[in-house]
């Protein structure tokens, strides 16, 4: 149920049923447990007065627009510097990390982006780490333009859903590693359209709360992608964050849903 008027959540707690392994996500998505009393009063008012209902609808709209704004496309950068720099700029703006070919991982540092990003307009990107970013269907355009992408990590992205997965077929030629662990909106129906990715060698589908039968789904996905190593619900590697990722996660502000 959407919570108090101050911060209405689009991602309903109903998807947080099975997120025992990712406390970070459930906390960031539903921190309103303590404000139940205030919520009931506002809801009561919204039921009886059109003005309050309109205000709440407006606040809901504002949240939606916030996510859309984050996922706007940077056409000027794309035209001037090419798809690789535009994709990297988008990911770094969202808080993710990018690895150009033969270079080190590039992360957003505290103040602005590093100046050498603009010099890399011909270098293809081989890995993208968009964990925890508010990337959605529209924002995925920037990632799908990276035709030499080999590794993509969409761990714990709150807006990546089955529709987004159906677009990944555009990366079928190059994608070898994909991680979808912890995304609250992905279900087995979206996993069914991963069969286009015939070059995939590593797939992580652990901790997906919206998948109804994780064990059976893992078996069916393994049958669907015979050359791929699938990490499922019982994967021991689950979501154990590596040390450098852990510090990055705590340094970043909590993800708005």
């Amino acid at each position: 149920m959407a919570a108090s008027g101050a911060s209405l959540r689009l991602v309903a707690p109903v998807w947080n049923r099975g997120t025992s392994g990712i406390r970070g996500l459930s906390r960031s998505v539903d921190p309103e447990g303590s404000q139940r009393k205030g919520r009931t009063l506002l809801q009561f008012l919204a039921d009886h007065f059109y003005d309050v209902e309109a205000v709440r609808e407006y606040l809901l709209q504002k949240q939606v627009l916030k996510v859309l704004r984050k996922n706007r496309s940077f056409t000027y950068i794309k035209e001037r510097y090419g798809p690789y720099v535009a994709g990297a700029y988008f990911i770094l703006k969202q808080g993710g990390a990018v690895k150009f070919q033969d270079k080190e991982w590039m992360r957003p540092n505290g103040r602005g982006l590093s100046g050498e990003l603009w010099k890399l307009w011909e270098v293809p990107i081989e890995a993208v780490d968009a964990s925890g970013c508010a990337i959605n269907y529209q924002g995925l355009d920037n990632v799908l333009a990276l035709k030499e992408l080999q590794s993509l990590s969409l761990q714990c992205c709150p807006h990546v859903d089955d529709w987004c997965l159906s677009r990944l077929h555009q990366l079928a030629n190059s994608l070898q590693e994909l991680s979808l662990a912890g995304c609250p909106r992905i279900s087995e129906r979206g996993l069914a359209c991963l069969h286009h990715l015939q070059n995939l060698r590593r797939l992580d589908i652990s901790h997906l709360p919206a998948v109804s039968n994780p064990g059976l789904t893992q078996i069916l996905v393994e049958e669907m992608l015979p050359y791929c190593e699938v990490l499922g619900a019982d994967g021991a590697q689950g979501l154990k964050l590596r040390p450098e990722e852990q510090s990055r996660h705590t340094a970043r502000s909590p993800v708005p849903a």
Partner: protein
Amino acid sequence: MLRRALRLGLGPGLLGRGLGTHREGSTLDWHGKVSEIKKKIQSVLPGGAWSPLCDTSHLPPEHSDVVIVGGGVLGLSVAYWLKRLEKRQGAIRVLVVERDHTYSQASTVLSVGGIRQQFSLPENIQLSLFSVEFLRNINEYLAVVDDPPLDLQFNPSGYLFLASEEGATIMENNVKVQRQEGAKVCLMSPEQLQKKFPWINTEGVALASYGLENEGWFDPWCLLQGLRRKVQSMGVLFCHGEVTRFVSSSNHMETAIGEKVTLKRIHEVHVKVDHSQEYQPVECAIVVNAAGAWSGRIAELAGIGKGLPGTLQGTKLPVEPRKRYVYLWHCPQGPGLEAPLVADPSGAYFRREGLGNNYLGGCSPTEEEEPDPGNLEVDHDFFQEKVWPYLAQRVPAFETLKVRRAWAGYYDYNTFDQNGVVGPHPLVVNMYFATGFSGHGLQQAPAVGRAVAEVMLEGHFQTINLSPFLFNRFYLGEKAQEHCII
């Protein structure tokens, strides 16, 4: 004396024991009276309907700007877009009249729930593209404050159409049109098909078209409930009743060349309440015919088709109910998770349902074999003779299968050209149609709703031009034939 003692002793309302003794021989139903008083107070407070003279809460209102006949997905979609596109909030009063609130015979909920862009007419492709965008952002369009978001259970697995030698050129042309409109479709040769889906037997297949994105199937109930919830929150009134009569007035006019024309205008809709003879005449400005399989009957009530055959007055609405069967079977060695909705050149189709090796499918019968649409009984022999052989030939694993369940539903079949009828009637000037989609109504409903709302509010189509789907084509004989029908 004994009776009173018994009543006092056995009455459940012990609170009334003391008060019950002042009147002899009467049972003071204290709890009942208290709940009645509470109901009366609640109805007087803001938010409750209160009519001082008599209780008409079960009847529809006496006046309504728009009356939508039919509360299925098309009717609700028109209601939604009307309320969304109105110039000022609360400007238009909309009433949706639905005969069966359990939707037991409605085509919407009995449908297989597929959505595709693989059509031959560009208008159909555009309608489908907008509808898929609507479904993708359904929680932005149909968001209601404090209600949980909708989960459409969309399977983006795509549609796979198979074509034999004769159909290959038509399929190629269709795919060209589809790509032009922006659909993501790829063509596959039999070898590529065999490599991608090894469980298919490609004998007799010359070409296949596969939808890569924005195609698949979803849960129609969820869409219906989502629309219903949102539309109620926007202030649309619902009525559970049946339309029995239209009261209209005629206007005799002359065209520019001097021909005499009779224009009709519907003034009142008589809505009969279920299980009773009570009816309510609803005064209205516009009537929308979204009655699905029964649209022909509603059109006849309005006087459409009452005239000499061959004239505009005599042109009936050629929409009639056609029964279609859907079978659910279990096949342990069947196609896996990647199986799309496969449509065989013979007309048989199937899709995966869930994770347990269950499949849904059926076949559209030929004109001669059309079953009687009087009831929704399932004919299991039809599966044995007309569906299973083709399925088993196409997918050898289906030779061993067991039918678990089957049901039948209606297509609102347009006998003229199997495409929808949208827009106003030329003679009955305030009746608008949104029906006749012959099996692809559910997937086009959001876009059609918007188109009809635009015609009603602006007078012409604004976003998608559906002029080939107007009623006039039945009189002029211009078919907007759709070739890719399942």
